[in-house]
């Protein structure tokens, strides 16, 4: 039986110091989503989704825009609670944790959000952004330890972004920003890495580089990776399982299958703008 990861770390209330999973089947999974639904404003964003992910798996969540991919990732990041059903991450049932405990749980979950989710007004350097990964679990103390600084340098070297550390994050290219975000997420030494459309909006060359980098991370770190994308051809070869969401419902959950991917790719190509046949987004077609 998997015990909640919080039980062996910071003090927690006895009520939830160990949150056992309730079903026998899902206890060996690092992530167990059971009949989870999310309803917002009377509309179902996710409907009755069940998904179990074992430690060390690489799972891709695909689906068109608005399918509920990001919402599913937010459930797994413990930043959103299900309206119905249950989400267990690292042995902890998220809606049985109080707010402090959910933040403690998030120390173990690295999240790379979509690119637009940063404030371009703020002149943080790439190094500053990576350093925020070392703040996991902090309350008021924001200083970096010497060991953190050394790890930051090592991470930057590993990701080949040492030359970017002193440059403002906002002036970096989209691909460089994603590399920095990946380094930030790994700086917190997570057990689970959640990637929300990491290649979206990048040109073809950067998409390929990012996919290679994610592949490299998966092979060199002991991580469970869940990655969303609506481009089937953006998946690293190590991805072992595909999950397809459509209209908030899970319509496919099975092994990596080239034929299925090809079918989805064709469907996306028909549904989306014809100008994205190079695999990237058609930036010039945006109304702004």
């Amino acid at each position, binding site marked *: 039986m998997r015990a909640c990861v919080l039980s062996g770390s910071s003090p927690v209330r006895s009520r939830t110091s160990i949150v056992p999973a309730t079903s026998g089947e899902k206890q060996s999974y690092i992530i167990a989503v059971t009949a989870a639904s999310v309803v917002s404003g009377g509309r179902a964003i996710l409907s009755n989704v069940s998904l179990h992910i074992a430690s060390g798996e690489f799972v891709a969540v695909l689906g068109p825009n608005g399918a509920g991919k990001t919402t599913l990732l937010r459930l797994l990041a413990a930043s959103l609670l299900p309206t119905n059903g249950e989400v267990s991450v690292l042995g902890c049932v998220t809606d049985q944790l109080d707010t402090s405990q959910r*933040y403690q749980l998030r120390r173990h*979950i690295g999240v790379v959000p979509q690119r637009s*989710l940063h404030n371009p007004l703020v*002149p943080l350097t790439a190094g*500053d952004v990576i350093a*925020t990964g070392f*703040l*996991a679990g902090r309350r*008021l103390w924001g*200083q970096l330890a010497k060991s953190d600084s050394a790890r930051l340098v090592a991470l930057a070297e590993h990701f080949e972004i040492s030359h970017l550390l002193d440059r403002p994050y906002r002036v970096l290219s989209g691909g460089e920003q994603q590399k920095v975000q990946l380094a930030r997420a790994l700086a917190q030494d997570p057990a689970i890495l959640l990637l929300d459309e990491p290649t979206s909006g990048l040109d073809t060359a950067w998409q390929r580089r990012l996919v290679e980098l994610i592949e490299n991370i998966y092979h060199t770190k002991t991580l469970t990776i869940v990655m969303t994308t609506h481009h089937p051809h953006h998946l690293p070869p190590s991805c072992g399982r595909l999950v397809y969401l459509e209209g908030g419902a899970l319509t496919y959950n099975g092994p990596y299958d080239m034929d299925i991917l090809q079918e989805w790719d064709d469907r996306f190509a028909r549904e989306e703008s014809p100008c994205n046949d190079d695999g990237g987004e058609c930036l010039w077609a945006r109304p702004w």
Partner: protein
Amino acid sequence: MGASMVATWLLAALGSGVACGLLGVYLVGLELSFLGIAMAHAALAGAVVAHFLHLPVELTAGAASWAVGLALARLAYSSARSSLGALSSIFLSLSMGIAFLGIGMAQGEATMLQGLLWGNILFVRPWQAGALLLIALAVAVFIALSGRLLDALIFARRNEAQPFDPRYVMVAFMTLASLTITLNINFVGGLLIYALLTNPAAAAYEFAENMTALRLWSMLLGVLATCGGLAISWWFDLPTGACVVILSALIYSLALLPRLRSQRCPVRSASQS
């Protein structure tokens, strides 16, 4: 006019400029300028209520400002549907309603209460100048120690990428902000203090390329606004709060000028690139 009086004013201006400049970086960065306004007016309402109930003015004003700051910070992380700007506006209008009601009812003492609105350097006592310096020091130490946490908060637009609980640092921030606002009521005035929290920081954001430069410039521009405004008001015998705020707006305009001049037609630039 004694040298000690001038020294009191200068120290108050220095403390006010440093504290407001540093705090402003995060109020502007969090896109919570309205929060500063709401807190300032809550302090004003608290001061007016304290006057009527014969309570300690600074204590009541500080408590009111702190309560509003914490309530808004809490709402910022809640599932309330209204934006923080709308919520701040509600608190702001409530505070102003209470303050103006009190001022309207005061009759004979209206001048003293109006001093809370506009600020009056003559009301600043040496202990308040000392307190302003102390709070400036506290803000500087807080940002030196916890700045990275605040930086992460203003950088990430959504919360799920944050691996730490932001509530502790937000409570500490709101506490320092409410103390700073309360102590500034006699200097800049409850109606105008938010401009001092916003303008120098907004000016620094226009040209700073890293957080250290941003904080330093915001602090320096804050001191320039308070000390410069004080000098102008003394020289021309004008209200201090108004001079400080007008000067801070002028500083922002100057910081914006190079950006406006270098602006190109975005469509043309995009097609060229």
